[in-house]
């Protein structure tokens, strides 16, 4: 009797131990695979955020260890600093210029490329190629040659052929021509990338919709087919592209840094400072890490806020047809 009961219970316990062993072995294997990533994320994302927050409520000048507690003073100072507010205005202005132009250019490129059969790959490559160029090299080309303020700059040369006077592109006084330089360089660099996303979106549109429209008398490639079929069906792609573009514009640094800074244009970088250039100055110019961290949190909050707001207004995932 005893033995009869004992045997299954022993078996069950052994099976339980085996299962436990197997679970633990699986967990260990999982750790081996996923552990490096998790450790890295903790080390270089979570701890920095926590430490950064701790710094942002302390005094920390020229040191990365928090000194005396200051509460939200850094945040208050930041929000009252006219230079910070101005950097946000610069971002707003830049967004106003770059988002619509990028949208139109990349959509236009995608429609044109999608429309051709011969040499389609060639044209796609041409427009996509600038994506590989760095902002530094593009800024160099733009500042030193393409939009050089001297008469030997390429655009000034073109203006001369057209019988116009050369323009001082990077000036502090007079019309803010530097916006043309800043907007065109980014337009050249990023349009190809957004064109690819639009192309992917265009391919998702079922051909049957166009065929139905043609049966109803619409002409292929006409404004009506674009307005009533293509564009509405690209709604989600459009929302996504605008969002990516706004976030990228908010984090603009390289072209402002390279084009506006430097000999002869020393004060121009102060005329149009992006939020990141401003933060760079606070943290690595003044070595005020406490204030810099506070600024980083304010910027992060703004980006997340903009993302959520845009989602509310335009609604990613909402269908519009």
């Amino acid at each position, binding site marked *: 009797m005893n033995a009869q009961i004992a045997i299954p219970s022993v078996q069950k316990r052994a099976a339980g131990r085996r299962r436990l062993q197997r679970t633990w072995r699986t*967990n260990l*294997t*999982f750790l*081996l*695979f*996923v552990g490096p*990533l*998790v450790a*890295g*994320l903790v*080390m*270089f*994302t979570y701890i*920095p*955020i926590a*430490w*950064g927050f701790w*710094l942002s409520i302390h005094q920390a000048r020229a040191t*990365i260890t928090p000194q005396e507690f200051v509460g939200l003073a850094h945040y208050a100072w930041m929000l009252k600093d006219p230079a910070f507010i101005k950097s946000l205005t610069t971002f707003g202005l830049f967004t106003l210029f770059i988002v619509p132009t990028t949208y139109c250019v990349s959509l236009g490129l995608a429609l*044109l490329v999608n429309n051709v*059969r011969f040499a*389609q790959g060639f*044209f*796609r490559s*041409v*427009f*996509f*190629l600038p994506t*590989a*160029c*760095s*902002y*530094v*090299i593009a*800024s*160099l*080309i733009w500042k*030193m*040659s*393409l939009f050089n303020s*001297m*008469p*030997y700059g*390429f655009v000034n040369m073109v203006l001369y052929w057209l019988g116009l006077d050369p323009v001082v592109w990077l000036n502090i006084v007079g019309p803010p021509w530097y916006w043309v330089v800043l907007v065109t360089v980014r337009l050249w660099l990023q349009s190809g990338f957004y064109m*690819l*996303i639009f192309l*992917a979106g265009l*391919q998702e549109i079922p051909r049957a919709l166009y065929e139905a429209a043609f049966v109803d008398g619409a002409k292929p490639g006409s404004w009506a087919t674009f307005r009533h079929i293509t564009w509405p069906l690209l709604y989600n792609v459009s929302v996504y592209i605008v969002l*990516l573009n706004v976030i990228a514009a908010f*984090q603009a*640094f390289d072209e402002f840094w*390279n084009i506006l800074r430097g*000999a002869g244009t020393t004060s121009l970088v102060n005329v149009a400072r992006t939020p*990141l250039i401003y*933060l760079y100055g606070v*943290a*690595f110019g003044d070595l005020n890490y406490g204030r810099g*961290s506070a600024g*980083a949190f304010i910027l*992060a909050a703004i980006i997340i806020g903009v993302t959520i707001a845009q989602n509310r207004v335009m609604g990613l995932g909402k269908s519009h047809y």
Partner: protein
Amino acid sequence: MGLQNRVDTMPVTSPEPGRAQRASGASGLRTAWRRHTRLVPTYVPLFILTIFFAIPFYILFRNGLATHAQIVNVDRWLWLPLPLRFDNISRSLTSTSPPITNSLKNSAFISIWSVVGGLLIASLAGYGLARIPCRWRNGVLYLMLVTMMIPGAVTFIPTYVIVARLGWVNKMAGIIVPGLFSVFGTILFRQFYLDFPSEIEEAGFMDGLGYLGVYWYLVLPNSAAIIVSLGAITFIGNWNSLLWPLVVAPAKEMWTVQVALSTLITDQVIHLPELFAGAGVAIFPVLIVFLFLQRYLVAGYKLTGVTG
């Protein structure tokens, strides 16, 4: 597999055979002509835009192969400054005032190790999350998704603080290591492995391989498409990045090529030909990657674009 399918799926509308046969003689010529004129509004703007998009590259190489006097010539634009001055390149490479050659070496080191390390970490984690049944899976996924909400460029100050704490300022590790942990790459790998045919893996388990063996001998060798795509994107991104190396490695011997060029742009004395020749050399590796791996890049950017 899924990736490669996505590469070249531009819709090729087949020319309707019926119409071509129907059209004959003069009327056929007319329809053919009409069909061609219909393409004019597409090809003409495409050619003009092509020229516009190519001008900056043309200027880069023209200036890199010209003399200073030719570049600053105000009388007319020299389209092709002959003879081409290839010695600008060697002069740019041997200059030490910005150490271009050393900065190229630094950039190569950083980019290659970022690609190798980043891909290994992301594919390991992606495979683990896709295939190993573990109750921590959702927790890890959640942890990852939260970091995706945080805009990358904004965390550079807090991350710098930690890197400084580790004593990694002006060290290669400081530039490379914080960038190795890509949530985004992990998610792409996970998606790729979820679609991976599990029969191959089961065969491996039958033969007595563990998860690690299956991953190393069977899964990884069959992930070439996504590895090349993400690798090319990672390489270009690291080669071209400016802000992080600028912040974390300000010492001259640690400069990447972008930091060196960026310093050159704002120098008091500028030697235009050497500057442009240096930029031409700096863009060369990226152009090579681009030309040879373009289809993978397109696929990768589409994936990142669509999933991101």
